[in-house]
Each structure stands twice: as C-alpha cells, then as structure tokens.
C-alpha cells in the first residue's frame, strides 16, 4: 500500500507531507509536520482539543483524513501569534488566568478565533454554545468565557 503525497497550506506556508490513507489530519499535523500544539484528547470528535480551521471552517482534525487536506488551507494554534505578538485571544486567556493545565487551550483558542471571525459580538450564551465541543476539565469554563468576551470587546474596539 503506497503513501499519499499531500500538498497543502498550513498557517500560510506551503507544506507537503506523505501520509497513509487511514491517517487523520491530526496525526499528520503532529507526526509529519511537527505541529504538536494540536492535541489529541479523544480521537472521536468529542473533546475539541484537536480543533483547527480547514479552509476557514472550524473542524476537529481527528475527524479529517490527512489526505483530504490536499489543496486546502489549515490553520492551527501555532499560526495565531504574529511573531512575538500574541493574538488578542491568546493575551486575554493569559490575562484572565483562563487556563490551568493548558491541554485544551490550543483548541479553545482556535475555536474562539473562528467564533469571533463569524460573530464579533457574541453573547455569553453564544460563546458557551459555540465552545460546547471544547471540553475543559480544569477551569469550570468561567474564566475562559470571560476571556473570550473580553477579547471580543477589545477586537471590536480596535
């Protein structure tokens, strides 16, 4: 069985990798591209730790085959900061102490970014439902929700 050659764009860079037909995008990002910021918590789309944007659409990379990324564009947490400058969401998560262990944080950030791109002024309820697929076991979500709301406010003002 031969491997599949995939040409794709990851965080704005042209990237090529070889993958097996059964490998997921999550496996490819972590094992072939070296982007270990994308986390695996369940492998079944239930926890959201592996969230990435695929052609601008929020998805679980564990539910995408690596081969499907051919010709498409993938954004991960590693692409959020601009060099030394953190994305507003990253800064707000720090400011609000909205992370404890940090394993869910990359997925939360990618998901929250996708939300604010679609809805710059979400209500608390909208943030909570949008992030319902991003499990966090440490924080009880309180500080995460506050951080996302605060980031939204700052981004609207900017």
């Amino acid at each position: 069985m031969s491997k599949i050659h995939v040409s794709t764009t990851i965080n704005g860079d042209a990237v090529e990798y070889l993958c097996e037909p059964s490998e997921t995008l999550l496996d490819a990002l972590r094992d072939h591209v070296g982007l270990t910021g994308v986390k695996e918590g369940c492998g079944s789309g239930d926890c959201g730790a592996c969230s990435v944007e695929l052609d601008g659409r929020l998805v679980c990379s564990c539910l995408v085959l690596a081969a499907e990324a051919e010709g498409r564009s993938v954004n991960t947490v590693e692409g959020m900061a601009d060099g030394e400058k953190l994305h507003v969401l990253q800064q707000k998560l720090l400011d609000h102490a909205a992370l404890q262990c940090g394993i869910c944080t990359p997925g939360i950030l990618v998901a929250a970014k996708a939300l604010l791109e679609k809805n710059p002024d979400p209500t608390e309820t909208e943030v909570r439902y949008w992030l319902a697929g991003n499990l966090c076991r440490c924080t009880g979500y309180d500080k995460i929700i506050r951080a996302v709301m605060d980031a939204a406010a700052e981004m609207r003002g900017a």
Partner: protein
Amino acid sequence: MVTEYVEGSTGAELNKREFKVIGTRPPRPDGIDKVTGRALFGADLTAPGMLHATILRSPHAHARIISIDTSAALAMSGVKAVVTSQDFVKQSSSGNQDTLDNCMARGKVLYDGHAVASVAATSVKVANAALKLIKVEYEVLPHETDVDGAMLDTAPVLHEGRKFRNIPEGNNANVSGYWEFGHGDLDAGFAKADIIIERSFKTAATHQGYIEPHATLATMGPDGRGEIWVCTQGHYMVRDLSAAFIGIETSQLRVTASEIGGGFGGKTTVYLEPVALALSKKAGRPVKMVMTREEVFRATGPTTSSSTDIKIGMTKDGRITAGQAKLRYQGGAYPNITAMLGAMTAFASYDLDAVQTLAWNVLTNRPKQAAYRAPGAPMAIYTVESVVDELCQKLGLDPLEVRLMNAAKKGTLSSYGPTFDEIGLVATLEAAKAHPHYTAPLGPNQGRGVSCGFWFNFAGNTSVSMNINEDGTVAVIEGNPDIGGSRASISMMAAEELGIPLEKVRTIVADTNSIGFNDVTDGSRVTFAVGLATIKAARAAIKNMCGRAAQVWGIDADAVDWVDGAAVPTGHNAGEFPPMTLAEIAADQAKTGGPIAGHHEVNVDGAGVSFGVHLVDVEVDPETGFTQIKRYTVFQDAGKAIHPDYVEGQMQGGAVQGIGWALNEEYIYGEDGKLQNAGFLDYRIPVASDLPMIDTVILEIPNPGHPYGVRGVGETGIVPPLAAVANGVSHAAGVRMFELPMSPPRILAAIDGAK
C-alpha cells in the same frame, strides 16, 4: 520592614503582614508556551529510533489466564519486543505488587480492560496488528461489579487466599479494609433527638476526566541506565515504581515530568511507564506509549462507587444530637483506603457529642480506583449533607443557621479524632449567609441547595533549591509537576521573601536527578509545602547574602539584616553603609566566595484542614427531569491566597467536576461486566453551555502552620457540590433524591413515583 516570620505565629499575627507580591494576579510563567502550542505534554516528545507500543487488554471482567502465546506476534515484521507479567520483578510490598499487577495482569485478569501483554513495534499500526496475533487462553470466571453484591457470601472472590488486615468476623473475602471512627455515646445522643432520619444512598463511580490521555516515552540502554519522559503528578513516584518493577536501582533511572494535561489524582500512579521501560530494555530502542481515550476510561483511575447508610438525630431547634454513617465503597480490583477517608470526613464539619462512622472497602471486577480530588470525601459528605438538609426541611429550619449552630470550630473534637485548631468553617458559613445569592428570589421549578465541605490538606517530602544568578535574577528549582499554576505561586513566594520583583524569578520543575526527593503533587500540598520550602530556601540564600555584605563591609554577619531585597547594616552600624541589593551582591559573588544558593529539604508538617460552603440554584424540568444550574457560588477558606486567580480557578474547577458527578457522570457496566461508556460521548462531563458563571468568595483564615498562612485549596471544591446540587434538585423537584448521578431518567422516575 524585615520579611521575617516568627515560628508559631498565630493567625492574627499572620493577618497583619503586608505583602507586596502575594495576593496579586500576575500572568503565569508557563502561559505563553501554553497559548502558543509550544508547551510539551506527555505525547509531544519523540526520540530518534523510537518504537511505538500498545497494550492487549482483557475482554473479560474476570478470568484465569491459562496461557499466553506471543510467538506469532514476535515473529511479525516490525515487532521488536513483547512483554507480559513474566518480564517484571516480584515486589516485596503488597501495595507495590498490586500496582504492578494492575499494570500487567498476573495469573488472572480482574476487570474488562486489564492489561495482559504489550508489543513494541515500528508503528502503532504494526503494534496493534501484532496484538491480534497474541493468543491468550482464558478460563472465564463469574464477576461482580456492584459494591453490595461483592459483599455477599455468594460473590466471586477476586483474590483467593489473600488475607487483609483488621477485617472483623462476618465479612467475606472481598472486604479488603475496615475502619471505625468517632466518639461519644451514640444511643444517648439519639435518645436526645426530637427527630431521627435514616437514609440509604448510592453513588456511581466517576472518572477524573483529564483531557490528556496517559503518555510516556521511555528509553533504556545496554548500560542498564534508563530515562522516562511522562505526564504525571509525581515523577519521583514513577521513578521509584518503574525501577522497582524492572529490577534496577533508582539511581539508574532518570524521570522528567512533561507538562501535564490534567490529573486530579488520576496521575498519581503508574500504568504505562514500567511497561514502556521493560519494552525498551528488551528492544534496545526508545519506546513511546500513548493511551487512547477508551483505554483511559477502561483501565485507569475511576473513583470508588459507594453505598451508604446514614442516621442523624436532631432537636427541634436544630442541634444535631448524634450521627452515624456506614460507608461501603468498592474501589475495583485492588485494596485502597478511600472508604476510610470517607469515614474520616463524613461528619467533619460538625461539632458532635456522639458520632460513629464505619467503613468497608470492597473488591470488585472494575479497574483499580485512583485518587480523585479529595478521595472518598465527596460521596460521604453528600450523604450526610443530604440528611441534614432533609432534617432542616422537616423541621422548617434555615439550612445555614442549622449548620452554623452545629459547625466545627477551634477546640471542637473532630469526628475523626484530633481537636481542631484555627479553622474557617464558621466564617465561610457566615459569608454564605450574608451573600446576596442566599436571599435572591427563585423562579418556578427552581430550588436552592446548600452544602458544607471538608477536606484534609497534606504536606510531605519536599526539596527546593534556589540559585542567585550573577545578573541578579533567581532560579527556583523544585520537583513537583505544576498542575494548576504552582510555578507562578512558587515564584511569587520566592520574590516576596527575597524582596525582589517577580519577573526576576523563574521557577522550573526539575527531573529526578537534578534535585532532592519530592512526594507526588497531590493532597493539595504543593503551594503549601513547596511554598514553605521555597521560603526557607530563600532564607538560606538571604543568610548567605547577608554574610557576603558583612564581609564587604567588614562588620559582623549578625549585624546585617535583609530589607526590601537588600542587605542593610543594623545595630550600631545602622546607616553606616548604603543598602547592598541582591543584584549587587549577586554580581560580585565570584569575588566574595563563589556561587550563592539556598536550598531546603524537609518532610513538611503542619498542613491545615480546609472548609468550603457551596450555594446553588437549580431548575428542574418536571416533564423531562432535566436539571439546569442557574446560579452557583463557592465560599472557601484559602488560608492565604497567593495568586487569587488560581485559587478561584481551583474552586470553580472543583465545583464543576462536582456538578458533573451530581448530574450525569457515571461508569455504566453491562451484565457482561464490560464498561459501556468508555468515551466522552457517553461519559458526560459538563460542557460550557451546561453552566453559568461560577462565582467565588475567598476567605482567608490563616493556617498557623505556614509562614504566609497558606492552606491547600485544590481539593475541597469538589466536596460540597454533590450534596448542594442534590439538595437543590430535591427542593426544585419536590422529591428527595438518594442516588447519584441524578440523571434525567432518575429524576423523572422519582417525580412520577411521588405522584
């Protein structure tokens, strides 16, 4: 002022101290790595030549292993090593042997998912294919997963012929532990009561539910020296057990803790690490192992499930006259002490003349339980607090007033033995009573629940080193994995004590060979114990620096004090020399005698105890039994909140884990003894949309045992929510609930049953 603390300070003195860094909310030092994806967790490391290993697990709940034939797997292309229980060393302590047997079944498999063999191969795919070639012949045995069932004489015996200590006559061979606590005359106490309520409760086993599955990378060379990289709450524990299990000395094994993606008690033991090390020893190459989520649920740390009888007597005006609890906990296939902890904590919130708690720990065909945040306490206190609430309801009394009337305080003989010193329960209850939440109006189908909670704090073995760098910065080296922001709070305590800005301090968690021994990150111990050792290490460094200044000034070392980050002359030399700052002393250290460091190694004592009170408003849909949490407030005594954000985070996280336990989380076993919900889809932890904001009120009743008054805060938050939510549901639904989780089918059945 001199940042000195007098040994034996009372709480009042501690309250007077003015802090500069403690109590502020700076960003966490590991934060940038975690928001950029750079932080390295258990599964994130790779090594050249690395193999991947996976585990063959039992499909049976209980079976004798007749034979294991690994030859076909070993012959497969790409397979480099196979191990079974035969590849590990027999242990002298029964506790360690149990842990080893849980890592790799010996003789019998005791639960669905019990590890039987492991294969290291060139890829996960090859390893999994090889597992299918391992032939295991089983003799399937009858199984039991229920605690009450396992105590029956007809129950299958898990450990045939094994004798457990202090088990009274009349208990069967599955009872692995028995304990009694209490004081006073129970009969006389109940005789004084105007009302006595007796109830029985059941709670389901829950899982810690950390989002990061267990992962490790182990390597062992032909020289017999090994290294392990692992997500764990205690890398010294991993070192000691892994070395013992494969029969090498601890000095030959170096363990480095990765960032840890949640533990909550579930990463205080080993599962994969000794297996990966044994495979690496055989294969001569690094071996990586990462559990799937299904494996995490089937084979790691759930809590105990429980079955409890409670009897409490009360006078009409609300005084508790006597309390009795009989707690039966099953903790899976091996002995543990969780029922004992339940028995010690059940009535700890109350000042009682007569109290008795009896506890049985029972073996069942389920995974070996692991600690989970205040192990044993949430389910015990749930039952007591439910009955106290029912008594208040029947007598028409205010639940907080009744708790205040009966609250344990300084001088109370605790239900588990010792007399309490300074504790914060009364202050916490009063804060709850005064809070607007307590008197806010409720809507239709809504109910308000209240519960107290109690948990011990632990301390233990701790080592801290502190290097004063030439540029005036400080490196703190400690050995406890940071699961909730402890590097921040340790840095803050170092900065406070040294009198320098926080940004000059960097704290790292060192590997097992780089600093002295440390107990596991558990028992809410790290901010307390590592903080204490850090403060003392700083004092050692300060003493050294004062000595250097004295030498430079040509005065007596005793004539130098440390004020606001600088050495100053005192006594008759006062004002004679300008203060010499830490940075100045550091810069000249080579000239004044060499490197400056401070360190402290100690088995810390003096951990306080911790109390919390939770208020919750719930709304129950009378047609579906669905419960919504409308409002939640946590009141907890932190002693002294070093970094209030992280204290709040612990309170909020604990509360939400407790809400999950109360409403939906449970291990569901089929008749076949197999776990039916080994995934986040059907093991339902709370999601963001299930919850309101979790409000917090931090109280600070200083712990006399810590220089800054710190109490552990990590665990107490999970104790009250079970009863608080249950009491709220009982009021909202108009029917009392006696079983957790209060899933919608259970609530609806109770509502319909009461009609």
